[in-house]
């Protein structure tokens, strides 16, 4: 597979999720690996012709019809103009790149997912994959925090899952006053604080984390306090992936390359890696 040349794709829908994020659905060739064979946690490179390319995590589940869902925050050089994309617009895709979450390692275990902000996107992909193979895992718990209730992504979907009893959900926002009209039971606390009231069996729990880098140290120490071992904690690191294939040198974490060795790492793998958890 030639991963150097973007493959044509077409925007089939774009739906604003919050003021600065939207869910973009692309139509691609169902036989192309970007659509057909990715793992939650992997990423693809999305090209907007004439503007550039950026890395973005898969947010949905591999589909049979070649559609892929991406959650995009419109703050960068390429993502800003993408905000005004319309169905029918042509884009390019390369991927999938990197290592995703180790689904097979979760078999028979409880899973604790912790998402901060846009980190919900890859974890949604993971969640969908796990729900598809119901029975693979035991309890599914999601802790999800955002700046304000308006910034909680996929809220309806998550509340629906909670209602159906397939996940246990805890939500939080950073500041009071932002919680008005929020979902029921949404707390006002920092994401790591949600772990205080958690009841997990460390012997049979894995954690998958994706969030802004600033919360990682606290989340990690919280999980260790709960008794989770480092090889059961997986986290997704965000770096400036440009080539996706281990060549441009832009995504290094210590002596590792986020694009090739990550972006999902186990905490054990990152032991002694400077700058991994900042």
């Amino acid at each position, binding site marked *: 597979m030639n991963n150097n040349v973007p493959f044509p794709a077409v925007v089939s829908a774009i739906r604003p999720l919050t003021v600065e994020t939207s869910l973009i659905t692309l139509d691609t060739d169902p036989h192309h690996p970007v659509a057909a064979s990715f793992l939650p946690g992997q990423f693809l490179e999305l090209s907007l012709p004439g*503007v550039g390319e950026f890395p973005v995590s898969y947010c949905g589940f591999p589909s049979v019809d070649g559609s892929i869902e991406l959650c995009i925050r419109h703050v960068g050089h390429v993502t800003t*103009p993408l905000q005004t994309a319309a169905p029918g617009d042509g884009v390019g895709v390369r991927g999938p790149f990197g290592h995703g979450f180790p689904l097979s390692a979760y078999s028979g275990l409880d899973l604790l997912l912790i998402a901060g902000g846009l980190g919900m996107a890859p974890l949604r992909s993971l969640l969908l994959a796990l729900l598809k193979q119901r029975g693979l895992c035991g309890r599914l718990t999601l802790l999800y925090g955002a700046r304000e209730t308006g910034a909680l992504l996929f809220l309806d979907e998550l509340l629906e899952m909670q209602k159906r009893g397939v996940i246990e959900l805890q939500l939080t926002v950073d500041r009071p006053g932002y919680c008005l009209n929020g979902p029921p039971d949404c707390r006002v606390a920092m994401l790591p604080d949600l772990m205080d009231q958690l009841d997990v069996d460390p012997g049979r729990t894995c954690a998958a984390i994706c969030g802004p880098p600033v919360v990682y140290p606290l989340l990690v120490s919280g999980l260790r306090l709960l008794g989770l071992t480092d090889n059961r904690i997986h986290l997704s690191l965000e770096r400036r992936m440009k080539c996706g294939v281990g060549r441009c040198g832009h995504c290094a974490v210590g002596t590792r390359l986020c694009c090739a060795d990550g972006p999902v790492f186990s905490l054990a793998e990152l032991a002694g890696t400077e700058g991994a958890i900042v």
Partner: protein
Amino acid sequence: MKKMRVAIAGLTACSGCQLALLNCEDELPELFEKFAFHFFPMACSPALLEGEYDAALVEGCLSMPHEKELLLELRKRSVHLIALGTCAVWGGVAALRNGEDREWLRQQVYGHNPVASETFEPLPLHRVVKVDAAVTGCPPEKEELLRLLAGLTRGALPVGIDYPVCTECRMRENLCLLTERDMFCLGLLTLGGCGARCPSLGVPCEGCRGPVPEANLAEALEIYSEKGFGRITVLDRLRRFCPEWKL
């Protein structure tokens, strides 16, 4: 496709940057196809501000009250406001004497004759309004201008450069005029993007593109002084294009 509405204005400057745009002769037909230049006093008349603009390109620094009004007006009416050229981005040559007594300066130039309009100490645009993007250079590189415009049609602003002229100079495998010839080359401190135009011709960089991000002035001054250029000389030279150079 609908043409983009663009305003192009010149404040205190030599019009060289606007001219650089008009000099893109080969591309002009294409430009007129994509852009409607609704306000371009230098090239088209009449020049009346009207409605809103997708982008305003502003050349020159601010030195007169009416310029400030025009700039604020353009800012209000435009989605993107772009500083065009070194004067707009950094202050440029007009700001060379900033910090000196203005009354004295006035007398040096005009003697006791009355001056037509009131002026103040020249300022780069970003001191007064939010600037969305900058194309620096005295004048800007044609290529950069065209890329800016092509980007605008796609809703994109240019990606900033973070390397100095030296980086491009080395890429071109040039002789280093500073270290090998002891010439007064400002490439170390100057924002790249010109392809090391001057050093490639054997002429030291004058610093016309303004400071590179994270310029290490203290260390550069050491190096220049080893080559016999004192700090006053260096700072004077740097401030020709960017009065805000400070120690």
